[in-house]
């Protein structure tokens, strides 16, 4: 098919296959891709609303055994820079989130062998008993798989236990590119193969939970592999309908083992637009302003995105890889309205919650995102001693006398 006939098919609202998607991606002018994506966005969201969520992006530990080559965030077991957040620290973060109108934590972290499944269950249960309405959007598929391996429990059992403890929904992190050639090169094949990532999501959806899906492109992947990734997500969405949204971002190379250069702004807009075209069974696409900056983040709204994502409040992973952008609620709303849309708050399932909160009550402006912990603070939370550590450094650390004054 020619580009024109593929474009006509998209305009008619018909599905395109992977071969035609690749042809569009590699051959269509950027403006055409944007127009097609914008046509679909307008069809799916005719009211002109662009949504966003007030939640906090917390990384409970940076200790990780996976050692993905693209990750600047993790620290190996035993590292002096490794941290685990304590329950009280997390409660404080929830209090701060609620104070600015947030109702959810996006909670993800490293594959820490010294945090067993009961630690997560106790944490989730403690959060729910203190804050019954607060939502936990937590643990990407590779983290769930890690807990399954650590606890020797099947994934459905792990998911069931986490849900019983308070898990509300699952973020789509750790997908990178769902092609095993890429995953081997990125050293993330062993944390989860493409099939494993998808099968954890299937279990999550079957358990009645909703999740998001993601794609990190621009490392060692080819355009064809990006298309394959999108098609695999589309297939699973056909099967379960469990994904609420899709988010794509470019690999951030600074401070990573893989190194390299970042994909360009045009690459991002083209990839976003293609995602909107291929993922015809996804309602929502988020802008990744945290990797692209506020300006290109806003331009996402012309290239298929209908959601500005989260105000985040805190961010650790992308910052470690060299990108540091901040948008508070007022700034997100200014960008949405400047682009000609109506800004509305939402929750994880994309129910609209209302107009911007900062117009109803005074919310302090924020120009920087918080971090998990102040630099250099690697103190051990007291409750960790209740859980067995699996690694030798973890065992030694937990049996050492507490250096803090009584």
């Amino acid at each position, binding site marked *: 098919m020619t580009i024109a006939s593929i474009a006509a098919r998209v305009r008619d609202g018909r599905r395109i296959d992977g071969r035609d998607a690749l042809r569009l991606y590699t051959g269509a002018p950027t403006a055409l891709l944007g127009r097609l994506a914008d046509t679909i966005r307008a069809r799916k969201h005719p009211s002109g609303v662009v949504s966003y969520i007030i939640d906090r992006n917390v990384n409970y530990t940076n200790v990780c055994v996976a050692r993905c080559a693209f990750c600047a965030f993790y620290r190996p077991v035993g590292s002096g820079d490794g941290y685990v957040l304590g329950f009280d620290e997390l409660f404080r973060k929830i209090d701060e989130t609620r104070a600015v109108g947030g109702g959810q934590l996006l909670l993800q972290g490293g594959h820490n062998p010294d945090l067993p499944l009961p630690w997560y269950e106790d944490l989730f249960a403690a959060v729910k008993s203190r804050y019954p309405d607060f939502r936990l959007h937590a643990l990407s598929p590779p983290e769930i798989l890690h807990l399954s391996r650590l606890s020797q429990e099947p994934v459905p059992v792990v998911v069931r236990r986490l849900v019983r403890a308070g898990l509300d929904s699952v973020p789509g992190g750790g997908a990178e590119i769902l092609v095993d050639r890429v995953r081997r090169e990125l050293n993330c094949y062993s944390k989860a193969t493409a099939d494993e990532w998808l099968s954890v999501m299937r279990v999550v959806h079957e358990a009645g939970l909703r999740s998001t899906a993601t794609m990190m492109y621009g490392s060692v992947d080819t355009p064809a592999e990006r298309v394959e990734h999108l098609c695999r997500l589309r297939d699973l969405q056909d099967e379960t309908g469990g994904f609420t949204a899709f988010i794509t971002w470019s690999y951030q190379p600074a401070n990573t083992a893989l190194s*390299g250069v970042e994909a360009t*702004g*045009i690459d991002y807009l083209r990839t976003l637009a293609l995602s909107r075209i291929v993922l015809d069974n996804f309602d929502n696409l988020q802008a990744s302003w945290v990797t692209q*900056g506020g*300006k*290109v983040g806003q331009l996402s709204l012309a290239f298929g995105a209908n959601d500005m994502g989260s105000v985040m409040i805190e961010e650790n992973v992308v910052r470690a890889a060299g990108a540091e952008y901040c948008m508070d609620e007022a700034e997100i709303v200014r960008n949405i309205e*400047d682009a*000609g849309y109506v800004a509305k708050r939402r929750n994880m399932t994309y129910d609209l919650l209302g107009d911007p909160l900062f117009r109803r009550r005074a919310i302090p402006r924020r120009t920087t995102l918080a971090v998990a912990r102040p630099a250099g603070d690697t103190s051990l939370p007291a409750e960790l001693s209740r859980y067995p550590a699996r690694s030798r450094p973890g065992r030694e650390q937990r049996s050492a006398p507490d250096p803090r004054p009584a």
Partner: protein
Amino acid sequence: MHDDLTAALDKIEAGAVLEDRDWQALTGGRDLIALGMAADTARRRRHADRTTFVQVVSVSVSAPVPADPIGGDAGEVRLAGRPATAEAAVAAVRTLADRAPGVPVTGFAYGDLDALCGHDPVRLGDLLVDLREAGLAQVASLAADALVDPEPVVGVLRGSGSAVSSLTFGEAVGSDVWRLMQRVKSWDGIGGICRALAPLPSAEPSPPTTGYSDLRQVALARLLVDNIDSIQVDWSRHGPKLAQVALTFGADDVDAVPAVASHDQGWRRSPREEIRRNITAAGFRPVPRNGRFEAVEP
């Protein structure tokens, strides 16, 4: 495409006068891509797929000695800052021209030179001749927002055999910019002394401009200001991502690409490779130029 926007774009194409309703459609609508496509068509008519860029070494006018030797990728050495006196300006140009043989030296804001000469057109004309003879290839910038009557400026520049690299809108934003664009469009002779128009603000205002407003500004500059050849974006000031996207919205020249790699994130790719990669990924053909707007492709 929205009917009002189509009507406004048709009016621009026909050279008709724009009314308030047209401005609203051009500057307030959601259909950013339609505006970009119209600007891209206008830009391709003029420049096809050619996108020029210049790699600049910036040197302070108060200490006109480059920190590093001027490398082979530099297409321009630019004096930054306001000279204390006319003599200091000439001396700085002479020093730099000696240290950077073969690389065009540019510098100064036209308004600063005018102020140094007490706004006397004869003294200014003499200073411009002295600067040119000392080795100044072009005056770096001329602020359109500070210009009431362009005619004497065009006269002084022409009379002294000088030219300006970039016409800027200073720090103007919003409706001030649209007014300026219409004024510049009516200035006879401006294109003969000014090669490029840099439509984005020279300093980020508060609150900062948005991606939509920046791209609308670039696109409308290309569509409206047809008496200046190039629409320019600044790689260092606006950042690679926005500058690159602006190329698909009517810009055809990238200013202020560093001549030397920054090592703050570790060396990854030379600025020349990086700008080439970005221009190519945007669907254009990269052409390095120097401070005189001459192509320097080996």
